[in-house]
């Protein structure tokens, strides 16, 4: 677009030209470069200056000087001296003309130039050569007014540095001290000061926190006019005060700022290329870190860009992202519409343009974005309407890639939200994709959509999309029983089972992505990222060491290696790969293999945290902590949770909060703190959105836990009612996998209420659900419940129960958590004990050993009820065996647990951990 013409000559570029001259004509320098590496280092520095996008504004002369000091080593002072004297010697328009004609001489290719020794001939087509040519061209097309402006700006640019006999800040203060009293007159100025202090504060904080946005504090000069309407959240007075004690050379006294500074001609935007790079980088950062990026700071930067370059519409998109991730719905909608109104979706998107129509408007992308936004905010109906419109427009515009992305988005939407809502909309709305009629079920519609979307992505060679489609497919296979699409014909061969092999296959196909990305690297990103990283490295502490030749080269090597590594695999690829591991972990969780789930989560946590969004990382941490709680008790889990919470402090809609509530609830149930359990359970329910079909997982979780609390409180009929309505809800929203759990809970309720006969069908139903969805661990626990039910029907069923338990034991002992294992062991010994053909005196260890293990595990969990039962059984056995001492011991433990059960303590040492 306007990139070529956006190149304006500025004082900073003149400085870079001077540096280039020094680089290219080293013989003119009195102390020549002492080594090749020093020379190269200067070259690299200049390259970085022209390429890096760590900021939007061009650096000031001071910054340039301090950086030169870092890279120049022994040559630094000379470089600085030469630079400043050369730049400040430009005092008339004619000096500028001579300067730029000299510059032309550095370029190779013109025969008239006499080549001196040591001269580095700049290839006119190299990056630096191009830069120089652009500068010369930009100067040549300047009008006389332009030259005058350039001269004035160079004057301002140099003035501040050259008058450094007085510290900068003092200088400023002196200039304006005469009207400080008048300043205190106007009260709203005061407010501004505070706000300004606050902003500075924020900038500082942010700089320390992320290091991603190195925001030049000079920018604040121009910004200070804009800070008026930044809301001050906390008491600004104290903060301001703190600020004052800190000795930061960059922070200007706010009061003098708004009064004295003449902002004209001082700030220049970098080249369009660099600003775009900066914006892209920021967009990535926002998407990755979500709400933890400071809203106001970034908003200020954006406003500044908008002021300096009103026609750069990409800013609106960044505004949109920023408000999206800070959950500001109205601002997000406004800015999204604004961006697409101005740029028609052309600016800043790197979609592969369909051949032929290069400049056509892309409003379908606007629709796609709007749809995703509604999805993000939890408006499934609107999202689906918009996405359907996007499908139609993409078809009209024959924008195939957008269509593929839209289809993927629809798949994602309809698999996430409750399907019954989708069914309603998909059924009524006129849409070519969904006009399959209502004869097929929603799941089948989704399946067809997924296939279609995958096919499109493959034929368009959108590799990332293919990979994420494979992931979506895997997710689908994980949860859905395969059925033939057509509902007529012979059904004899139908096996109603999910297909783990397919899941595995899709996940593997997804991982192929990593070998395919090599062909698509965007040069924009790599170049700039390299330069930015290189410049950033300068500011790291080791840069300020005295530079000997050895560590200098080593350092360079380090920098290069670091950059090469970070840019060799695009972040988006890593992100998709990471989510494939995340999906693997949840797949194994569903199938019931704890070790494999844990391994995959660990792989994700170690390899992909850098590239993935903070919410995904938080999710993995939650999974690991859950694992910890199930296998090593709450104490470990809570301390891990504390660490994780500190790390993901600002992740909105945190999964960690849900996890915390879940753990608290479990623990409260085990310790029989029913009030606390109910309270926690209610809190969990409140977290879910009130919109139908949104946050289904959370809603299910909350009412499942509600039923369990009621069960623990022995309100059997209420618990059964809640479980029944939950079952209906899950059935309505097509959450079949979840139904297995609910059926099991119902069986449990009947077992506890003493209606074992009623419980049996539920347990059997749950068992068959587990079988068809391959939920192995849940199946084992259903088998266990079944055995318990049989056992409670009378001692003549003990044999059958024992066989069932023995069948399930391998799975339970291999993969089950502490609670399940203990339950199985106690049930096993109960079976033995109630078996009339078994005698304690013959083989007491058969029952004692499992009981001992069970009570150990239960004590870790503080599961009083079950532990009491275990100790009770033990005591009876010891009594029979006549081991009185052991009997007393078991009885004492029994008493302890029963006491704890009956008088739940209010104070809990673990709660203090949180």
């Amino acid at each position, binding site marked *: 677009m*306007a990139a070529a013409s*956006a190149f304006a000559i500025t004082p900073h570029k003149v400085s870079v030209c001077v540096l280039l001259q020094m680089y290219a004509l080293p013989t003119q320098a009195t102390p020549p470069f002492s080594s090749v590496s020093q020379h190269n280092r200067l070259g690299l520095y200049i390259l970085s200056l022209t390429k890096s996008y760590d900021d939007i504004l061009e650096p000031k002369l001071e910054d340039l000087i301090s950086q030169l000091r870092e890279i120049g080593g022994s040559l630094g002072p000379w470089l600085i001296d030469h630079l400043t004297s050369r730049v400040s010697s430009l005092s008339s328009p004619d000096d500028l003309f001579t300067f730029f004609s000299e510059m032309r001489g550095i370029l190779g290719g013109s025969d008239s130039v006499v080549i001196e020794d040591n001269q580095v001939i700049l290839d006119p087509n190299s990056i630096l050569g191009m830069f120089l040519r652009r500068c010369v061209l930009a100067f040549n097309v300047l009008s006389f007014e*332009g030259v005058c402006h350039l001269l004035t700006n160079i004057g301002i640019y140099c003035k501040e540095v050259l008058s450094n006999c007085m510290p900068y800040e003092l200088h400023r203060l002196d200039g304006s001290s005469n009207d400080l009293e008048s300043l205190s007159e106007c009260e709203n100025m005061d407010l501004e000061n505070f706000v300004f202090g606050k902003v500075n504060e924020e900038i500082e904080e942010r700089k320390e926190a992320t290091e991603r946005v190195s925001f030049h504090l000079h920018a604040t000069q121009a910004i200070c006019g804009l800070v008026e309407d930044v809301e001050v959240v906390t008491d600004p007075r104290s903060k301001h005060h703190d600020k004052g004690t800190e000795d930061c050379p960059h922070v200007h006294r706010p009061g003098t700022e708004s009064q004295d500074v003449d902002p004209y001609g001082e700030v220049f935007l970098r080249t369009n290329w660099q600003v775009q790079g900066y914006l892209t980088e920021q967009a990535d950062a926002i998407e990755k870190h979500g709400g933890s990026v400071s809203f106001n700071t970034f908003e200020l930067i954006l406003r500044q860009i908008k002021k300096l370059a009103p026609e750069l519409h990409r800013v609106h998109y960044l505004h949109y992202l920023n408000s999206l991730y800070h959950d500001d719905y109205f601002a997000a909608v406004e800015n999204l519409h*604004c961006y697409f109104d101005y740029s028609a979706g052309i600016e800043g998107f790197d979609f592969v343009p369909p051949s032929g129509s290069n400049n056509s408007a892309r*409003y379908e992308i606007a629709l796609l974005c709007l749809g995703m936004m509604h999805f993000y905010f939890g408006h499934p109906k609107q999202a689906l309407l918009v996405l359907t*419109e996007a499908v*139609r427009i993409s078809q009209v515009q024959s924008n195939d890639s957008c269509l593929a992305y839209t289809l993927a988005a629809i798949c994602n939407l309809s698999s996430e939200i409750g399907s019954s809502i989708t069914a309603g909309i998909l059924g009524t709305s*006129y849409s070519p994709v969904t006009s399959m009629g209502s004869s097929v079920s929603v799941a089948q519609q989704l399946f067809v959509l997924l296939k279609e979307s995958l096919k499109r992505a493959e034929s368009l060679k959108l590799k990332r999309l293919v990979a994420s489609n494979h992931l979506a497919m895997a997710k689908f296979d994980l949860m859905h029983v395969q059925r033939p699409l057509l509902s007529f014909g012979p059904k004899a061969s139908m096996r109603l089972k999910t297909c783990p092999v397919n899941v595995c296959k899709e996940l593997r196909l997804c991982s192929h992505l990593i070998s395919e990305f090599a062909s698509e690297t965007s040069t924009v990103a790599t170049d700039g990222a390299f330069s930015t990283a290189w410049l950033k490295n300068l500011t790291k502490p080791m840069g300020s060491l005295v530079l000997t030749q050895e560590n200098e080269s080593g350092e360079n090597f380090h920098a290069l290696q670091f950059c090469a590594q970070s840019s060799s695999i695009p972040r988006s690829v890593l992100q998709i790969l990471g989510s494939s591991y995340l999906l693997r972990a949840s797949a194994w969780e569903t199938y019931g293999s704890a070790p494999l789930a844990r391994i995959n989560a660990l792989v994700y946590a170690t390899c992909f945290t850098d590239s993935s969004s903070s919410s995904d990382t938080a999710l993995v941490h939650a999974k690991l902590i859950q694992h910890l709680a199930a296998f090593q008790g709450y104490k470990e889990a809570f301390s891990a949770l504390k660490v994780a919470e500190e790390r993901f402090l600002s992740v909105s809609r945190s999964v960690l909060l849900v996890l915390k509530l879940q753990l608290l609830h479990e623990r409260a149930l085990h310790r029989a703190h029913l009030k606390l359990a109910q309270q926690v359970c209610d809190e969990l329910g409140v977290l879910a959105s009130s919109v139908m079909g949104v946050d289904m997982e959370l809603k299910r979780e909350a009412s499942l836990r509600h039923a369990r609390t009621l069960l623990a409180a022995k309100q059997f009929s209420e618990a059964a009612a809640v479980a029944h309505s939950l079952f209906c809800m899950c059935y309505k929203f097509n959450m079949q996998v979840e139904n297995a759990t609910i059926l099991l809970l119902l069986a449990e309720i009947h077992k506890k209420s003493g209606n074992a006969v009623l419980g049996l069908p539920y347990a059997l139903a749950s068992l068959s659900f587990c079988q068809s969805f391959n939920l192995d661990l849940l199946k084992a626990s259903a088998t266990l419940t079944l055995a318990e039910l049989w056992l409670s029907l009378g001692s003549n069923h003990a044999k059958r129960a024992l066989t069932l338990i023995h069948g399930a034991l391998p799975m339970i002992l291999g993969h089950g958590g502490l609670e399940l294992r203990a339950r199985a062991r106690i049930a096993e010994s109960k079976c033995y004990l109630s078996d009339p053909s078994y005698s304690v005196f013959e083989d007491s260890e058969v029952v004692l050993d499992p009981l001992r293990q069970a009570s150990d595990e239960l004590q870790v969990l503080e599961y009083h009820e079950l532990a009491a039962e275990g100790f009770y059984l033990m005591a009876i056995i010891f009594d029979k065996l006549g081991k009185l001492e052991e009997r007393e011991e078991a009885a004492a433990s029994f008493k302890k647990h029963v006491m704890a059960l009956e008088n739940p303590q209010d104070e809990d040492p673990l709660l203090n951990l949180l």
Partner: protein
Amino acid sequence: MSSRESCRSELRTAIRQLNDRCLYSASKWAAEQLVGIEQDPAKFTPSNTRFQRGSSSIRRRFHTNDVTSTPPAGVSYVSTPVMEEDEVVDGDFYLLAKSYFDCREYRRAAHVLQDQTGKKATFLRCYALYLAGEKRKEEEMIELEGPLGKSDAVNREVASLERELSILRKNGIIDPFGLYLYGLVLIEKGNQNLARTVLMESVNSYPWNWSAWSELQSLCTTIEILNSLTLSNHWMKEFFLASAYQELRMHNESLTKYEHLQNTFSFSNYIRAQIAKAQYCLREFEQVEVIFEELLRNDPYRVEDVDMYSNVLYAKECFSALSYLAHRVFMTDKYRPESCCIIGNYYSLKGQHEKSVLYFRRALKLNKNYLSAWTLMGHEYVEMKNTPAAIDAYRRAVDINPRDYRAWYGLGQAYEMMGMPFYALHYFKKSVFLQSNDSRLWIAMAQCYETDQLHMLEEAIKCYRRAASCNDREAIALHQLAKLHAELGRSEEAALYYKKDLERMEAEEREGPNMVEALLFLAQHCREQKRFEEAEVYCTRLLDYTGPVSSMI
């Protein structure tokens, strides 16, 4: 209201004082109002009333019930004493400076006054500096224009002026004119609250400076802000309020104020133009046309506000009148944004959209923030089927004034044209929010809901109901309501609306396919309800119409 005579003498003094301080546009405004005061016909020769002829006919047409000229009870106007000049005779240096100023050599003027200490001299020096800065700013805006849009040039005098004026204000040696300038400077610096206070002080102590009032008005963006001002009850306040109400789109309130003011300033062209503006916003095109015909007869070289007249002519498709108007303003001053807009309108009416866009572009070159040109250009692009350009133009209009419902509506229409009805809804909602009593907007929104793609009939019905309740001229809403209800199988509601529609058509003596449809439906409905007599009535009426329907019966 204070007597005509006192107004007249106040204005005469004010004009002299304003002229003395080179506040020319304020003095122009005051002079216009001075001439607008009704003269005693007995005392003056016809030549004095030359600028007032014909005006009384407007009054006759629109003021059938003559408003009493007594002020509303309880309002008493303060009479601000006319300001005393500190120097009766201007110093020589002042005279030189004023001459320089009149020749637009601002810096020279300021330099001459450097050592003068009088309030008047200080003001003129500061004002000259301010204008010099403004001039330089405009130049720089062109010089520094970058590829990514205008870099923002600033008035470089503002900082030092602010310092000086704030000290003067603190020491209490500032006159109302100085306060006005201080207000300008503060607005430029973006300090709106203080600017409001300062301007308020200025108009309270010297109410005849219309420029100060209009700056103050530009700071009143909401009715709450307007109500929070404490202004003394001078008659100039009435002008201010009327104009502020208009800007806040409280057109009826504004009209009452203006009509009240017309009792004193019965010949003021300004007031007439403002009334026309309000009527235009209320879509009373006939009245606007009459007012402007009179105005242009009195003041044939007027360019201000005439673009509105051209819009009216455009809407009424008066080709020759519009071309005549365009020719006239072109001869008067072709480099006024208004002139370019009128010519653009003319070409648009002729269907030559490319040329029309050219002239709107020229208008925007002259004034980048000329709101209606952006919107009109958007309309042209829509006609040329260049939707992205249209959207861009409308969006710029909206960014200049987010309360411009026409541009929001245009955006909605453009997106609807591209087959994105859901996306368009966002914009229709915006426009409806701003102008909730305009049936066209509601109908557009309803049609959006009605499209095949969305087919959200319930929402469409809600919109049509709103449209029907706010004076739907084309009577689309009632018919659509009836049709939609019939489609949804609610025959009772459908019959109700068909009946309403029928009554309305009868009242307006319109006939057509809608009539047949209504009659047919009602006949069938009555038959189903076993009200055969009623059905018979409808059927007999149907027989009056030829076509397939009568043969069906």
